């Protein structure tokens, strides 16, 4: 067991904790917007650490064996991370806007600033 193995275990542990909290928050929140908030934020953070664990593993194997397959694995994992980081918040924003425009109101909300802005735009 080297120090790199402990780093990989720590990253995988952060990944597991945040991904499970993200999927659990789908069942513990009252309406669409809070569910979207919890699920998107937690699963994005957990997936960042899953990809970082794979990158550390591949870099360590590249250092041990010198096989260029591991360099390819690290670079492609980073490309997957960039694709996920660009697309995930944008998709969540689109879902929230579509849910509000199709008539689903936030539960127990006192102030709805987007609704006021829409009404101000129409008048």
């Amino acid at each position, binding site marked *: 067991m080297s120090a790199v193995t402990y780093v*990989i*275990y720590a990253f*995988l542990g952060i*990944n*597991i904790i945040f*991904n*499970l909290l*993200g*999927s*659990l928050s*789908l*069942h513990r929140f009252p309406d*669409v917007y809070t*569910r*979207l908030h919890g*699920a*998107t934020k937690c*699963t*994005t953070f*957990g*997936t960042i650490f*899953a*990809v970082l*664990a*794979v990158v550390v*593993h*591949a870099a360590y194997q590249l250092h041990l064996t010198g096989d260029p*397959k591991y360099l*390819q*694995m690290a670079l*492609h*994992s980073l*490309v*997957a991370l960039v*694709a*996920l980081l660009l*697309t*995930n918040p*944008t*998709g*969540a924003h*689109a*879902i929230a*806007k*579509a*849910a509000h*425009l*199709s008539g*689903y109101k936030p539960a127990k909300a006192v102030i709805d600033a987007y609704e006021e802005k829409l009404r101000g735009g129409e008048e």
Partner: protein
Amino acid sequence: MIAPEFFYAAVIVMIGAFLALLRVFFGPSVPDRVVGVDTLNTLIVAGMVLLGAAYDRTIYIDIAIVYALLSYVGTLAIAKYLQGGLR
């Protein structure tokens, strides 16, 4: 199986994906189901990257890239359809 810790991490991530799938089945409204599908896509990309490291195959990670981009297009299409038709 080269690295068993990545395999067990992928199994636990897939348990989280099953929890998100329950929200897709029992969601009371349509945006709830869309939120469940979006979470499921992110978790499947994470699990596929972990399985690529576990089985020592880079092609799984390439498929994860393509899956992330295609699921983004699908999410945008569903959101556009929800807010009043594909115009």
